[in-house]
């Protein structure tokens, strides 16, 4: 975010600066390690990982079979492993069932494949209503499901982490894995949206 330098730092900024300097002075944290942590989650681990997993599952039946049986193992094979992905489970959207992921008690989220969660995922409005009125929640994201379709909501109360495998959009026969990745939004892997509809521009991007 841009910051006006004439604006004095907030109490919160001062409080965090004070804590950081204390922890560094006491040798409790290594400043270079802090930079590694930030760089990892700001630049290296993010929803492109998940989009790769989904597009591969759409195009490679053998991979999909392993993925549905042991997602942790399957995505480790693509190099995606670590914190908040120790026990990964993929849940597949079908013609009958749509899946939606939430953590009502805190903010559990599959970091290895999606990175850190967006602000709304951690907010009280989403955490409270995703379980009790998922259809209305989806509508707030512009997602209207067939009223006959069942919604299964996954409340991430344990260390299992859930990734939604969206349905492959129609009209994508013959698309490559790289082309298909462009259709896989982060939100579709949380389940608040569907994968993007196929259009020629998306196909052209890869």
């Amino acid at each position, binding site marked *: *975010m841009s910051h006006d330098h004439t604006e004095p730092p907030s109490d*919160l900024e001062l*409080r*965090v*600066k*004070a*804590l*950081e*300097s*204390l*922890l560094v002075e*006491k*040798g*409790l944290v*290594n400043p270079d*390690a*802090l930079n*590694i*942590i*930030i760089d*990892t*989650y*700001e630049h290296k681990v993010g929803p492109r990982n998940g989009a790769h997993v989904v597009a591969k599952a759409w195009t490679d039946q053998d991979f999909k079979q392993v993925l549905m049986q042991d997602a942790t193992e399957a995505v480790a094979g693509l190099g995606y*492993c*670590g*914190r908040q992905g*120790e*026990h990964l489970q993929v849940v597949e959207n079908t013609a009958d069932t749509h899946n939606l992921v*939430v953590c*009502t*008690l805190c903010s559990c989220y599959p970091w290895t494949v999606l990175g*850190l969660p*967006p*602000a*709304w995922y951690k*907010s*009280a*409005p*989403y955490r*409270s209503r995703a*379980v*009790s009125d998922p*259809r209305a*929640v989806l509508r*707030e*994201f512009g997602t209207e499901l067939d009223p*006959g*379709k*069942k919604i*299964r*909501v*996954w*409340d*991430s*109360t*344990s*260390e*299992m982490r859930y990734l939604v495998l969206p349905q492959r959009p129609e009209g994508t026969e013959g698309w490559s894995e790289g082309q298909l990745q462009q259709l896989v939004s982060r*939100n579709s892997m949380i389940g*608040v949206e569907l994968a993007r509809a196929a259009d020629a521009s998306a196909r052209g991007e890869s």
Partner: protein
Amino acid sequence: MRGGHDLGGQVDMGPINPEAENEEPVFHAEWERRVFALTLAAGMLGQWNIDESRHARERQDPLTYVKNSYYENWLEGLEKLLLEKELISSNELQQAVAIEISLASQRFSVPNPEQTKKILYSGTPSLMETDSEPRFQIGDRVLVKPSDSTGHTRAPRYAQGIVGTVSARLGCHSFPDSNAAGGHEGKQLYRVIFDGTDLWGTESDKTEVAIDLWEPYLEQANA
């Protein structure tokens, strides 16, 4: 524990107002970036586990928990753990200078950047060895026992007193209620599926909620 964090099913929390996916930054301010990194780095000292960390954020007045932004709750939790584990003192925190607690005799090591990267990419699995057999079978109807525990628990209040169906046995996993109290004990974990109508009423047909629940939270429901 009943607290501001146990949000499932609460009403009137307002609209979600999501930021557009392609426009939202990972962090919304520099201080958030620092709180995130400090929390992970301090966690790597091995002085507390993930459930103690969650419990520290939950132990706040519920109105404050809900009103705070996400990383404010993280900051609150981090300061609390550092104080409780006596890695810092409140005078040190107020003055931002190391004046009181000497760490010379502490037997922990501070990970360097290379070790930090390794820890991030290896994670901490919660699956544990056990000799115990799971008590419930797939298809069993189970009741989530009502709880007035003041400690940490991962049985959400909205499911307590409700009957669901076991759909998977997930193995023996570190039990949060013990873990948050500094113990380390494994218990059988199940995936239990609840009908929306049982949780929320008749308008929630076509909705199911899947919740991961540990064996001590559950009892066999009458057939």
